[in-house]
């Protein structure tokens, strides 16, 4: 009896695996097609909605924990300070914090208003759980007017820089492919010498970008530290948005073009807010 059941069990699990692999393979093969994209949109909306929920809950708890610890800290300080009447120190610190926060928000608001292109400010709520991919989830989606392929920029310190582009749109969240992703290619230009090339990521948020296909005759005109900007070709990205600075120039004798290592303008490890650019408004006016 036992001998007769074993092969059937084996066939069952192998059969199931075959079905799963077949379905996964079909998804993979058609992942660029309409059917799967729609299916993916539904799944992305659901999962990123849950992700947003988790983020809110974790923010709430971390906020509550911070608030509780802050409260006990304040109580302790109040008792000390009420005795010594030195509470102005705490007030000064709070004022400084509020002032710094206020200045940061003012900068962001000012930057948002200074952009000539219609933009949608968004916050980052999550990053890709797969180590090989680098998607960034933001808290704005189709409901807020975001569409696939919209460029994303950010403002850090006094620098504006390219972050990437929208690759997936859910109802209230979207997925951004950053410029440092292996699969991200941006048509770029050296700001001073005006030579064109293609900037590609290397998969790491802390790593360098690479600018390829720069004419070899440009060798003498390019210097380390030169700024690289978007070329604005094909309307994928608006022109003249800073991407990074040349950190190394490489050119082999047998190659017809140069490769430049590029230090990104944006520090992706401390990126919190981004602006999604709606270029369709400008294009509609031009047409």
């Amino acid at each position, binding site marked *: 009896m036992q001998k007769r059941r074993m092969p059937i069990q084996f066939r069952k699990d192998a059969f199931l*695996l075959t079905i799963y692999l077949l379905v*996964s393979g079909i998804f993979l093969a058609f992942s660029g097609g309409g059917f799967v994209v729609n299916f993916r949109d539904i799944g992305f909306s659901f999962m990123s909605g849950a992700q947003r929920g988790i983020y809110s809950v974790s923010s709430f708890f971390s906020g509550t924990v911070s608030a509780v610890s802050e409260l006990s800290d304040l109580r302790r300080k109040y008792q000390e300070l009420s005795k010594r009447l030195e509470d102005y120190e705490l007030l000064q610190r709070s004022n400084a914090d509020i002032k710094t926060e206020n200045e940061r928000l003012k900068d962001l608001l000012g930057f948002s208003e200074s952009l000539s292109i219609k933009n949608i400010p968004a916050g980052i709520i999550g990053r890709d759980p797969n180590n*090989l991919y680098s998607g960034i989830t933001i808290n704005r989606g189709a409901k807020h007017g975001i569409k696939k392929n919209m460029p994303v920029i950010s403002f850090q310190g006094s620098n504006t820089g390219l972050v990437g582009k929208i690759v997936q749109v859910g109802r209230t969240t979207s997925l951004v492919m950053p410029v440092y992703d292996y699969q991200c290619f941006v048509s770029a230009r050296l700001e001073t010498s005006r030579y064109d090339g293609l900037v590609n990521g290397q998969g790491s948020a802390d790593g360098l970008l690479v600018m390829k296909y720069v004419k070899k005759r440009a060798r003498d005109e390019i210097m380390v530290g030169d700024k690289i900007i978007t070329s604005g070709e094909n309307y994928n990205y608006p022109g003249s948005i800073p991407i990074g600075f040349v950190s190394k120039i490489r050119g082999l004798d047998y190659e017809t073009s140069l490769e430049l290592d590029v230090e990104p303008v944006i520090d992706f490890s401390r990126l919190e807010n981004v602006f999604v650019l709606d270029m369709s408004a400008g294009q509609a006016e031009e047409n």
Partner: protein
Amino acid sequence: MGRVVFWTTVTVLFFSLFEAAILSNLAFLPVMPDLVMLAIVYVSFMNSSTTGSTAGFISGLLLDFLSASPVGLNAFTKSVTGYVAGKFAGAFNLDRILFPSLMGLAATVLKALVTWILSIFFGPAILSYRLAGSALWLEILANIVCAPAIFALLGLFPSLFVRRGSPE
């Protein structure tokens, strides 16, 4: 099997959201441990390859929706991982540290291998690990370190993750 797959899916959903919303934002972590894969390995080893591949497929599909990877990539790799881990169900006694770590190591290598094979068939949309890059080795290390903890955590709930009559 349904109960185990259901609870595995719930757990994996939690792990994947935890990875995407919290772990990924910790700047000091160069790579993230694959908690979902470790959970699949545990469930598969404690049950069977049928349960493992089913849980792996569903969990992988959920993970696909959170990632910029092509839909089906995680479903494929997790199905294979679940199936292979399930083939070893009950083959040896699971201790606290050594075997979970070894299984974490083996599963990560298997994932890298399957991803590489898929990248041959499906082209550049599928990114594979580079032997010379640090990502693979750091992820192996992270999974080796995290595997005992995940196994111990899931081992606290045998009624949820182990099917009655399974080779425990």
